[in-house]
């Protein structure tokens, strides 16, 4: 390690450290403008130059490596003169008035700080020799705007966009004094592929690139000095990005992302949802008081229903989702068709508050009256207990929430198991990774990712991604994958759609939907034929391989080519690349899992992975990419029908006894019978008559909505705890107003088993309460002793009953959190699992042979298209939050179907035209988006939109093991909706 002297202090530094690194490590400040953590060093601002003895010129501290014996002076006369010179040159073209009013609402203008520190006076306006700087401005953008007069051309934004997010929207155009930051070739961020992630906003040192919303809603003073800045976890996807919420006037004013911390999942980045999707908690639609359905009255100390019966019982002045599907609706807005901002001076989007369009219609509140908490609690407790007494605990069920914290999920499952004696506890994992869990349990007795997201960038040679549109659904992880690919890792993508990653991939296996088993079996067949399997791993770490060897024999690449449509030699090439690694990571998501044979599909992928030994090493990770920000945690803490926390079976009396003790209830109150799953509950034969739903919206997310919606209407009692009067909540008897992510403290588990702590930033609006508080009170009213006062205390109980979380406390989670297993109080967490053994009884992985079967519904003459469903970058799940987030909804305000240009031409439709999609179950009207991301003969429908709900059409046939529905494939027909045959307007 070289030893050097900086400003007279002797320091040692790593050999590859720069002078800047060494100085900052020692607390010596050197000004920098173009340097930024993680960005490539370009050394262009020249403000960091320092004197080094024996060097004729000043040297850039940010770009000069330390050397033994170096003597550095950071504030030498020459260095300071240079800095003042740089600042003066920049100031010559910088709006001087900015300096006077504190840099226009920019809390941390690095440039202006240096101007003040080095005492440089701007030239008075009149004496200016040069014009202010300029650049592309993004006029009217609802999320990001530019004020390029304050740009100092440090190019951080350019590099952040190109090198961190790997998008490359921004660049420097022109030369000399005309150089400026431009957005794409013609100023249009859409055409340039902008994803509105706001990485540029994050890195800009002067606020030349800034967020639009805060400046429209908050005063400069509020933005500059927020009341609090609170660390939270992004409420959307399973990446679990850490964000800082700035609070002003009790509301979130803006979101920034934490400075670089090596272990946080995002290392300072976010995607558009994390950075701009934060204003839904302040939406006018927020529920602020408990609601009770009119018709419930109190009579003689008991609540009785004396409202309408039959269809009227749960009716309301709204259209069913089915009816809304038939309505006419706006086509896609013009921005999606490739206009140029410079050609059409854009719609000033800011004044058109799109949020109101999707807001809860006032009529939806009509069947309800506002109630007190006492009334709502009393009624709910009475009805849940009544149904339990009348029909038994199993006539009740709850849907827990992948959007709620571990503590909340734990308390809800504790309430249903301990208080109501039923295991009918499930959440949307059923429609997410339940098949993965089933397959992983079968093969490895595990339920979560084996490795970490950062492995992909750090140590992985081949990245195999199946059925995961990572750059849209897990954008920050998607960017890491792109960086890894740029760094030289080979990318193989198996996906029927040409997603962004598929477009970049070295090998894209564009197979027919649902033919995965044939594809992975053929890859394995070829690997075996080439003797590329990992023999040592097979012998020492697995058993039953011979069964799989026999099972895959018939799947030659040629045969698979016929089934999947992927050419045989592409399959061979992918197989060899996968097997040769040396470190191959295997990622998958909904594209594999949401099938009626999802468990088999995942199993065939696991067979491939195990045969090549691609697990249990740093760089060879098994990563089922989890969707919601706490779908992993909700499952971990037992919000699934078969297990308590830590996946411990409800059937085992010994385990039951342990929980009974912890909850101070007699063991017999806890049922030994496995409960019903989400997709089983919503069926007439389930016997469920009363439900409690926390933060889920099954009427949009369940398959075959028309049936689901009908089922919910038939319930005896329905309580919903949510932020908004959702499509499901409108059928409730009682609606509890809960708290958003920003209004509670709790923990969330991301896709790499990382438990992270999110802090309360603001108070819930009106009388809304924290969800934990609601559950504690209700549990007590149901007779289950629940003495807990805070999330912290709940976590103590979770740790006590959850062996792999035993070392977890809230205080230990501050910072980057912990990756479980964390068995003891001083255990550092586990970055990757299975280095030596699997958690199966004998420590070995089990191979399970599987056979290819055709998808349940194949296209035919009547229904010639295969419909695929999924998510978009700007929306989340059933849209409850994102459609009330101004910026996000402005990007994707309307429901669409993606259709291949050739199919569209054959149908005679163009961008924005309405079409009717019809499946064997139902039909709905939506607008076309022409895109070659989908293959011919396929259409893609995002499921976020109430007005054209994809799940009206999906097939409710279930996976035999995990009871997952076939959400990814159903056969549909597509018909243009002609003006001559109009659909009813409204």
């Amino acid at each position, binding site marked *: 390690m070289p030893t050097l002297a900086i400003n007279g202090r002797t320091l040692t530094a790593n050999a590859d450290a720069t002078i800047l690194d060494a100085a900052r490590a020692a607390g010596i400040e050197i000004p920098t403008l173009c340097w930024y953590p993680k960005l490539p*060093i*370009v*050394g*262009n*601002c*020249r*403000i960091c*130059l320092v004197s080094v003895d024996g060097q*004729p*010129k*000043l040297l*850039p501290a940010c*770009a000069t*490596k330390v050397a033994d014996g170096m003597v550095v002076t950071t504030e030498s006369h020459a260095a300071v*003169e*240079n800095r003042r*010179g*740089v600042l003066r*040159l*920049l100031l*010559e*073209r910088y709006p001087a008035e900015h300096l006077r009013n504190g840099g226009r609402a920019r809390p941390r203008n690095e440039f202006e700080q240096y101007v003040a520190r080095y005492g440089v006076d701007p030239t008075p306006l009149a004496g200016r*020799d*040069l014009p202010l700087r300029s650049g592309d401005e993004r006029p009217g953008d609802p999320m990001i705007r530019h004020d390029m007069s304050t740009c*100092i*051309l440090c*190019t951080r934004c350019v590099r952040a966009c190109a090198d961190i997010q790997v998008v490359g929207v921004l*660049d*420097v155009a*022109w*030369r*000399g*004094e*005309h*150089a400026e930051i431009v957005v794409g070739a013609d100023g249009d961020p859409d055409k340039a592929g902008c994803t509105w992630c706001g990485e540029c906003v994050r890195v800009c040192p002067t606020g030349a690139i800034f967020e639009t919303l805060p400046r429209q809603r908050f005063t400069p003073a509020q933005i500059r000095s927020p009341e609090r800045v609170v660390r939270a976890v992004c409420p959307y996807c399973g990446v679990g990005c850490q964000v800082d919420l700035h609070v002003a006037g009790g509301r979130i004013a803006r979101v920034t992302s934490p400075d670089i911390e090596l272990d946080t999942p995002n290392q300072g980045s976010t995607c558009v949802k994390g950075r701009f999707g934060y204003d839904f908690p302040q939406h006018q639609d927020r529920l602020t008081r408990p609601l009770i359905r009119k018709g419930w009255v109190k009579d003689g100390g008991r609540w009785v229903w004396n409202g309408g019966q039959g269809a009227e019982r749960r009716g309301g002045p709204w259209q069913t989702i089915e009816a809304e599907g038939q309505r006419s609706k706006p086509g896609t807005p013009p921005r999606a068709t490739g206009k140029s901002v410079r050609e059409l001076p854009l719609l000033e989007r800011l004044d058109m508050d799109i949020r109101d369009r999707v807001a809860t219609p006032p009529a939806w509140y009509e069947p309800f009256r506002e109630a007190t908490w006492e009334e709502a609690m009393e009624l709910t407790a009475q009805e849940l207990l009544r149904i339990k007494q009348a029909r038994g605990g199993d006539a009740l069920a709850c849907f827990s929430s992948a959007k709620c914290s571990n503590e909340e999920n734990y308390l809800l499952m504790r309430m249903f198991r301990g208080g109501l004696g039923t295991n009918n506890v499930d959440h949307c994992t059923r429609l997410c990774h339940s098949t993965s869990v089933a397959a992983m349990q079968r093969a490895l007795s595990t339920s979560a990712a084996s490795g970490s997201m950062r492995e992909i960038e750090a140590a992985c040679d081949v990245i195999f991604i199946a059925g995961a549109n990572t750059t849209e659904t897990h954008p920050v992880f998607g960017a890491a994958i792109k960086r890894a690919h740029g760094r030289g890792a080979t990318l193989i993508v198996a996906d029927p759609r040409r997603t962004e990653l598929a477009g970049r991939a070295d090998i894209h296996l564009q197979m027919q939907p649902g033919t995965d088993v044939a594809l992975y079996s053929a890859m394995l067949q070829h690997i075996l034929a080439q003797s590329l399997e990992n023999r040592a791993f097979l012998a020492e770490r697995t058993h039953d391989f011979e069964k799989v060897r026999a099972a895959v024999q018939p799947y030659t690449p040629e045969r698979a080519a016929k089934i999947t449509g992927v050419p045989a030699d592409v399959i061979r090439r992918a197989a060899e690349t996968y097997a040769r690694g040396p470190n191959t990571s295997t990622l998958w998501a909904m594209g594999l899992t949401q099938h009626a044979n999802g468990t088999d599909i995942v199993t065939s992928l696991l067979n491939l992975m195990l045969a090549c030994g691609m697990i249990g090493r740093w760089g060879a990770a098994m990563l089922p990419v989890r969707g919601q920000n706490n779908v992993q945690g909700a499952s971990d803490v037992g919000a699934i029908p078969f297990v308590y926390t830590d996946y411990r079976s409800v059937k085992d009396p010994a385990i039951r006894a342990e929980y009974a003790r912890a909850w101070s209830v007699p063991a017999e109150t806890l049922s030994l019978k496995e409960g019903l799953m989400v997709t089983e509950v919503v069926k007439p034969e389930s016997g469920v008559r009363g439900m409690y739903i926390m933060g889920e919206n099954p009427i949009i997310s369940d398959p075959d909505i028309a049936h689901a919606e009908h089922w919910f209407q038939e319930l005896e009692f329905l309580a919903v705890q949510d932020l908004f009067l959702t499509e499901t909540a409108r059928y409730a008897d009682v609606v509890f107003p809960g708290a958003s992510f920003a209004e509670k403290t709790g923990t969330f588990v991301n896709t790499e088993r990382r438990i992270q702590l999110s802090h309360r930033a603001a108070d819930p609006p009106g009388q809304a309460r924290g969800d934990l508080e609601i559950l504690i009170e209700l549990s007590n009213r149901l007779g289950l002793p629940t003495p807990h006062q805070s999330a912290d205390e709940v976590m103590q109980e979770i740790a006590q009953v959850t062996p792999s979380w035993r070392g977890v406390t809230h205080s230990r989670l501050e910072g980057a959190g912990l990756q479980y297993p964390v068995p003891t109080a001083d255990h550092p967490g586990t970055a990757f699992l299975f280095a030596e053994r699997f958690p199966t009884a004998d420590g070995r992985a089990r191979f399970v042979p599987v056979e290819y079967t055709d998808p349940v519904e194949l296209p035919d003459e009547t229904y010639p298209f295969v419909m695929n469903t999924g998510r978009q970058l700007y929306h989340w799940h059933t849209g409850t939050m994102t459609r009330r987030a101004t910026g996000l909804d402005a990007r994707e305000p309307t429901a669409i179907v993606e259709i291949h240009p050739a199919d569209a031409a054959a149908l005679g439709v163009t961008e924005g035209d309405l079409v009717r999609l019809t499946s064997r179950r139902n039909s709905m009207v939506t607008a076309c988006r022409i895109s070659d991301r989908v293959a011919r003969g396929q259409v893609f429908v995002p499921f976020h939109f109430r007005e054209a709900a994809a799940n009206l059409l999906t097939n409710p046939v279930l996976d035999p093991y995990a009871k997952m529905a076939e959400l990814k494939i159903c056969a549909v027909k597509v018909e243009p909706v002609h003006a001559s045959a109009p659909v009813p307007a409204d």
Partner: protein
Amino acid sequence: MGYPHKPHPKETAVLSKHFGDAEARSYKGWVKRGGYEAWKQAQAMTPAAIIEELKNSGLRGRGGAGFPTGLKWSFMPKEKKKPHYLCVNADESEPGTFKDREIMRWTPHQLLEGTAIAMRAIQAEVGYIYVRGEFTEPFAIMAQALDEAYKAGILGDLKIYLVRGAGAYICGEETALMNSIEGKRGNPRIKPPFPAAAGVFGLPTTINNVETLAAVPHILKNGAAWYKAMCLSNPKSTGTKLFSVCGQVQKPGNYEVTMGFPLKDLIYGMAGGVPRGRTLKACIPGGSSVPILNREETESCLLDYEGCVEKGTMLGSGGVIVFDDSADMVYQIMRLARFYAHESCAQCTQCREGTAWTTKILQRILAGQGKSTDLDLLLDLSENMTGKTICVLSDSCAAPVVSGIKKFRGEFEEYLAGRRRPVVAA
């Protein structure tokens, strides 16, 4: 430019020996004139031996910096672990310099031969000849020559590609040139890493000027001692050098002289001196980027690296720009500054803002609106622009300004005092 002049008796025509001889352009013609013999000789030598010969010859880079060529080649990794590259800098865009153009126009095989030898010396399999975008004719000639050389099979399995620039002076800077070859914006890179460690595509690269490489075959053929003996003054500057003489002279053109040749004789003797009735006022001896000499300095300057430094300037690329007493030095300096302001790649603050601001101030002075503080401001800016940036374009802009104000301050003051008629609009 038309055909070259007849060789002047005092010239030492080595590189320019066949200028004007159209037959020398073709492969056959070149071979007839002894071409590619040095290349054959080189193929029998080890790379180390070639480098040694170059070191002994004393050849220094003709692109501007004058770095010893043999030494530069020796920086390439001896043990080859990754592909090596050679870049040939034919971007010649320095105002006042037009020697590489003539080498390519008349003797394309001379350059190809030097390129091949250099590639062998540095063990490169790929060579890029980066030709200034405006050089359409030289490019066509080079393309034809390359074609012929390949058809003749003389280049073996060396891969030589011609790349066309797109009209940016900065792409002549070696690392900007590499970025440009890679298809990126032509911004110079921070150094280290130097090209020998990480050059084009991040791989070990050597870059040489056209004239440098054109001299290489002659050195191999005639021996290092022969080359080294061509020296009229300082032994550190050897061989011959092409000087492009332009400006207010009677016979502008390229003249090849032995190192150490008096500048005075070049201007008055070969180039015919300033127009009749005029007197010499100033001269920029090394292309637009070097400090200006006044008359006394010009007349006593010896043309080699050391001789120029002695006079406070640099040999640079050898573009000799001559001014007679009719020249308005303020105007001339403004034009130089404007060139650099236009060509700055705009990365470095000092350069992007400094070159533009300098130009604005000079224009203001010329418009009769200068302020009394302007000369100090200019000197201050120039100080700020010198030695602080990624490449030396910024310094190049400052050099004529600082030397101009020092040597012709009176002319500036006349504008400032309103004693000269404004020549540009405000």
